[in-house]
């Protein structure tokens, strides 16, 4: 068993009463950014999707576990443990390259996906935004197979001149609501 992960975001909302109203223009920018991202994914424009990420990206989906109360802080695997995804930008790009071969059989024929990203909660930071969103990623495959992946994304967005909506994702932690996955693979992106 590993040591608990230090999670600086644990008290994202320390006191609900003190939670500041998000500036409407910031809110619109973040929502547009996520709608754009979902659009690119669902249109399978993966190369354009990759343009939303910073060069020093960390894209991470830990494994979720069912734990007793005393070990509950270990619910998500830590950085020295296994994960569902643990990617830098080059590694994430390699996944796109695999699909582009046209012979990645879990994505050929292509999955039909719909990413719904909502419940935007954002905190402004010096370089950009720390954002939490809820998502449903629906995947339909073959004739009638379907899987729904549901969870939370914890993003660190940085302001970037010339980037789509002026933002780039530097860090993304994806927390699925599933423990044992009820799907044959994770061949889509989140």
């Amino acid at each position: 068993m590993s040591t608990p992960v230090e999670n600086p975001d644990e008290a994202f909302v320390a006191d609900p009463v003190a939670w500041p109203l998000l500036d409407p223009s910031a809110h619109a920018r973040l929502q547009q950014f996520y709608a754009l991202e979902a659009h690119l994914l669902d249109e399978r424009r993966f190369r354009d999707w990759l343009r939303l990420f910073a060069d020093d990206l960390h894209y991470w989906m830990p494994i979720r576990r069912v734990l007793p109360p005393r070990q509950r802080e270990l619910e998500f695997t830590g950085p020295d443990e296994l994960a569902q995804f643990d990617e830098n930008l080059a590694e994430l790009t390699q996944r796109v390259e695999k699909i582009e071969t046209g012979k990645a059989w879990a994505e050929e024929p292509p999955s039909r996906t719909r990413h719904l990203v909502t419940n935007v909660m954002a905190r402004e930071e010096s370089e950009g935004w720390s954002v939490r969103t809820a998502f449903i990623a629906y995947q339909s495959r073959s004739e009638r197979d379907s899987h729904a992946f549901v969870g939370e994304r914890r993003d660190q967005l940085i302001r970037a001149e010339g980037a789509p909506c002026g933002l780039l994702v530097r860090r993304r932690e994806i927390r699925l609501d599933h423990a044992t996955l009820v799907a044959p693979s994770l061949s889509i992106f989140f």
Partner: protein
Amino acid sequence: MLTSERLAALADPDTGDVSAAIYTDEEVYRRELDAIFRTSWLFLGHESQLRKAGDFFTSYMAEDSVVVTRNRTGGISAFLNVCRHRGMKICRAELGNARAFQCTYHGWSYGLEGDLKAVPNQEAYGPDFALEDWAAIPVPRVESYKGMIFATWNTDAVDLIDYLGESAYYLDGVIDRLPGGSEVFGGIHKWVIDCNWKMPAEQFASDMYHAATSHVSAIAVNLPEDFDPLKHGLDQRDGVQYWSDEGHGGGYFLADKPNPAIWLHPRAKEWLISTYEEAEARLGAHRAAHVSGHNTIFPNFSWLAGTNTIRVWHPRGAGKIEVWAWTIVDSGAPADVKNAFRKGSLRAFGPSGLLEQDDGENWVEIQKTMQGSVSRDTTLCYRMALDAPIRRSEHSGAHEGPLFSDTAARNFYRRWSALMGSGLA
């Protein structure tokens, strides 16, 4: 009804004719649960998951949930995760540390060895009620091989080391390369694939053949610029398949120096090469050089050398499995090397793995297709290398032959048929 005649028609290990019904037939599956999974040694987990007294994890033996603990005397105990009162799960967590497990239905509590310690309002059961009579069902045989914990319900089973037989030689090439042995990373990949458990078990025993087609996209994006297919063993002339009478099997590419799989993390490849001499002194040149390959211990435990994924294909009905996959690494490796194995393994063979994705896709489609009345009676072709010369390995003593071959699969079904047929009318 399943009779020995029908069983013989389902799988003929001599001709290599196998009926697709072995993947779909519910009666076959129900018999497997008893004839295969109650008689064989099954993998539960790794000792490094149980470092101190009271550490526990839950695992499965086929569909049966079991609790595995590091008990107070430092040994390992395993018991059925079923409360003797009304059958509730005794332990509902995947892992943790505990002194006792209290059932959340009526509060019976069990010790680390499955002993019943306390029953609320015990006096209501009368004076003859004895806690000793209602312990959790123990798993009667639990043995470890170099940290790998196996168990069986079969009190007459041979010892684990004899069951592993010649396969221990190949397993050592992954788990005993260097002094200090090996350990698993925290976190187990657990996911569900709608396919029969024998598809992956048999594939890991016998099927290097699929890699060039199934995994073509993963190979393409991992090719080094100076790639030479002969040197990197995508040609079967460079390989060997092995199998043993227990039903185990595997395959690997020949090499005279370590030739790690192309999808390993660069730092992991370096490690396998830089520790070659140390591993050679320990294991001999043959094993030290064979740093990749696929393997199955009958019935449902498999591993890939080099990528270091070790996994169990837990059956969940005729048409469903739950895969549990750990990653194992040399305990003495430096942190950056461990990290390289961790990343390389999850990126190649986790549920999102660049290679793993391809296999699940095939198995799911097969399982769906085989539901058809005509489809399920299709005879499948397991005839590759039917007449190829075979020999005994000078290294392990296992049977061996050409790498691209269905021989280890036929051998898997020979063992399967023998166990399934025992006591059949």
